[in-house]
């Protein structure tokens, strides 16, 4: 075999390979050219130049001189203050009964309606609930989270067999491997929006159509990532258990799961959180949730409301992340 000599070669004569092959260089060169062409087609060059100008403008203390910086400032100035209160105009003041007001609510006869620039457009007579909008958003968010949880549960249930059959070393044969991987790809490729609409036609509008859409679409993600991680797990412990004659399921449970559990948890958390963000989809099929509110507020230029909703989503994401981090820390247990 190869050119091993019979007497050992002294170290000084050992053949060292260069790290970068000429093939790699050629590939890199071609890639660079293609990227350069594409950069122009995709306006990356222009975008970078604009950003550069904006940064220069800001650094020089003249943000107004850059269109980009101006746009940012304009948006940020409109995003605050957050909208916390809600109001309901009183249409028949003579019928108004102050005793039926909910807790903390009060009547404001000169409640100002402001435009996006913060200027008062007109005044109305309204019942004001000081944290009315916040509680409303909270309620929507709870609805959304519930549905997101069901979507995630469904997704996990679908993805477990996909992962098993999609993991080399566990799948029974090449065929089942390819089928599982193809289903994962397919589920990922179909936009959940379209899936939601199709399910709405089949099942009627409502939460279930949204749950199915979220579950099916994201099972493509979970299936692939679970499978990849299983394939990628350290082989030693797996071999050790497999060599005792334990079946594949048991090897997975005892040699792979302890290794990959932290990642699996992260994937699950991501899907849950992503399903919360995909709430728009739920709105489209009439399942309620935060999505429609966000969408419509945005379309109405109600940036104050939008900020409130985004902040609420951020807090949800943050809490999910905190919970997951704790469980992870336990699992990793360093």
């Amino acid at each position: 075999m190869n050119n091993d000599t019979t007497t050992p070669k002294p170290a000084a004569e050992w053949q060292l390979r260069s790290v970068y092959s000429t093939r790699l260089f050629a590939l890199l060169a071609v890639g660079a050219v293609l990227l350069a062409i594409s950069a122009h087609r995709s306006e990356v060059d222009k975008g970078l130049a604009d950003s550069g100008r904006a940064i220069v403008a800001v650094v020089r203390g003249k943000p107004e001189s850059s269109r980009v910086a101006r746009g940012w400032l304009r948006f940020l100035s409109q995003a605050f203050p957050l909208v916390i209160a809600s109001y309901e105009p009183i249409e028949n003041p003579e019928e108004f009964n102050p005793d039926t007001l909910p807790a903390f609510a009060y009547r404001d006869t000169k409640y100002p309606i402001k435009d996006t620039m913060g200027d008062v457009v007109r005044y109305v007579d309204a019942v004001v609930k000081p944290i009315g909008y916040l509680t409303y958003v909270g309620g929507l968010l709870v609805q959304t989270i519930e549905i997101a949880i069901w979507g995630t549960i469904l997704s996990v249930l679908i993805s477990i067999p996909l992962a098993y059959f999609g993991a080399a070393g566990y799948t029974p044969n090449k065929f089942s491997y390819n089928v599982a991987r193809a289903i994962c790809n397919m589920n990922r490729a179909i936009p959940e929006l379209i899936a939601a609409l199709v399910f709405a036609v089949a099942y009627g509008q409502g939460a279930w159509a949204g749950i199915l859409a979220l579950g099916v679409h994201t099972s493509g993600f979970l299936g692939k990532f679970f499978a990849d991680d299983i394939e990628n797990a350290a082989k030693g412990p797996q071999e050790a258990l497999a060599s005792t004659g334990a079946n594949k399921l048991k090897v997975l449970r005892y040699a792979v799961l302890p290794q990959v559990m932290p990642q699996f948890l992260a994937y699950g958390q991501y899907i849950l959180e992503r399903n919360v963000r995909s709430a728009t989809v739920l709105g489209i099929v009439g399942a309620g949730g935060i999505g429609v509110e966000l969408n419509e507020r945005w379309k109405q230029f109600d940036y104050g409301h939008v900020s409130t909703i985004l902040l609420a989503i951020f807090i949800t994401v943050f809490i999910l992340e905190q919970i997951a981090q704790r469980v992870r820390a336990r699992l990793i247990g360093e």
Partner: protein
Amino acid sequence: SDTESLPDGSAELPLRVMLVPADGGTEDGTRADFEPIFNGITQVYDLHFDIRVGSSYNAVVEAMANDQVDIAFFGAVSYQIAKQRANVELLAVEERDGKSEYFSGIYARADSGIDSLEDFAGKTVAFGDVSSTSSFSYPAAMLLEAGVNPAQDLKAVVLAGNHANALRALVSGNVDGACASLDSFKKAVDDGKLSEQELKLVQKSQPIPSPPLAMNGNLADKTKTQLKTAFREIHEHPDVELRSLKGYAGKNIDRYNPDFSEERFDLAMAPLDAVTKELKDAMIRRAAEGN
């Protein structure tokens, strides 16, 4: 039989109502607008409803075709499409001051120097949603009539998604023209989202029939009759306190008219004959190409 039966409005099988918020409507706002009338009908006529708010006309049409939705609002154009694809019947049309109509318009910036539809040649125009009557079909027809082919003669076509987005694109200077209904424009101005001086109405459309409330034609005849009666009478029923009757997009109306003739919709579609599927396709292509 095996086949699942259609709702009859009983408490066990409520009629499924699917509402799509009009431009400038939020989910709870839409619900709040229509719940009083449906509740009133339940109270008086013992017809029960399951009201949902979604946001895709497309899904509503298909769901009606599959007997998954019983009552829904449509735009004038989407009503035609719905009739093509599903067994849909007119339930009622909102009426105010004896009229059931509204208007679409094409707007430009006040300082743009655009004064007539011809001036839009070579300019960028934002439309709303392709399935929208007043932010797409009518304006497209108006441009065509003025000799500006929206698929060929514009610099770029932007599909902004809805009226408000189209107007916003116009205000921010990204486009030179925007198509929207006069009601949407007024609502944006009222809410302080636009200043009336910034924009001008270049051309107003002819009257468009108000968005109809439609029902699934497969419902039992008895149910259909009950529904029509209810909508005809509810506004003057002594037992129901409907402080204000709301119509599409939450505006105040006088009554619902279940006897509006279908022919008037067909008539209103006549000016849209020029807006063929090919034209739509071509406009979508222009929009997809970007600018």
